[in-house]
């Protein structure tokens, strides 16, 4: 029931998050599992969110939306987006067990963000495919 990732894998995932998301202007990004654990997170150094609570709520939120999808006969909603006045949250499923959450301001367009998230997800997927979760 317990799993772990190597230092090398964690380093390369953080590099991907930095390069594809933080460096293009995303405020905060975190990779979580569906139990609500944080696997990796990065921010631009200017904000301090309570990431553990955010991860727990994000996993719950995504789980609730997935359960709704099943009820209406949709396999899943792999992408979620919450729009605010200043801050926005974007959820992207990586695999059955992992989720990428991005917090960004209105200075970045949703289209550009989706493109960047897509690139990061592809790379992270390759790393996570090599580990066995229960």
């Amino acid at each position, binding site marked *: *029931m*317990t*799993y*772990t*990732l*190597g*230092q090398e894998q*964690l*380093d390369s995932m953080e590099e991907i998050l930095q390069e594809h998301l933080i460096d293009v202007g995303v405020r905060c990004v975190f990779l979580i*599992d*569906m*139990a*609500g*654990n*944080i*696997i990796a997170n990065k921010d631009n150094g200017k904000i301090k969110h*309570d990431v*553990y*609570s955010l991860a*727990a*709520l994000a*996993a*719950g939120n995504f*789980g*609730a939306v997935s*359960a709704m999808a099943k009820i209406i006969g949709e396999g899943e909603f792999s992408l979620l987006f919450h729009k605010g006045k200043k801050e926005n949250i974007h959820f992207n499923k990586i695999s059955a067990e992992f989720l990428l959450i991005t917090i960004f301001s209105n200075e970045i367009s949703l289209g550009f963000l989706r493109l960047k998230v897509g690139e990061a997800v592809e790379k992270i997927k390759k790393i996570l495919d090599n580990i066995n*979760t*229960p």
Partner: protein
Amino acid sequence: MAFVNPKKKEVQVKVVYYGPGRGGKTTNLEYIYKKFDKRIKTEMVTIKTHGDRTLFFDFLPFDIGTVNGYEVKIQLYTVPGQVKYDATRRLVLRGVDGIVFVADSMEVRREKNILSIKNLQENLANYKKSIFKIPIVLQYNKMDLAEQGIPLLPVETLEKDLNSQLKTSSFEASAITGKNVVPTMKKIVSMTIATIVKDLK
């Protein structure tokens, strides 16, 4: 599903408080939050209805110090106890490492306790987990009500109903006064960590 992060030297562990509605799961967390307010740096997260009933879950992250050089972060969750919220209950149980079953000791709630523990067994099975294998502790809550003349179930009855097969540790407690709340938590934390250490070997 505990996650071990060798880079940050950190382990994240998920403990869920389960049990029938109005049994005192949230009160357990509120007591812990109050008691350890100096060590818990974040707010307790609750998602509840207007009527103050848990709708989705409560969440309380809690640093308990280091074990074998790893900082252990315990994430305490509660489920909504009401029967109708089974779908959300199941979601909260995802990736659980340890369980506290909070039973309501009031005589009138006997049936509700039994149904809830059966429901726990079914929902764990949904994630291919066995109630007999996962670390679990029982708490017989509301013992303080005896003083007000409210009929309570004898501990032997509670043991027979809920613990005859599990044969795990149980605590007579009162979440509202704090009696045995911390020992219950300490017990489940130590059982869960022991399992994780065994898993990693």
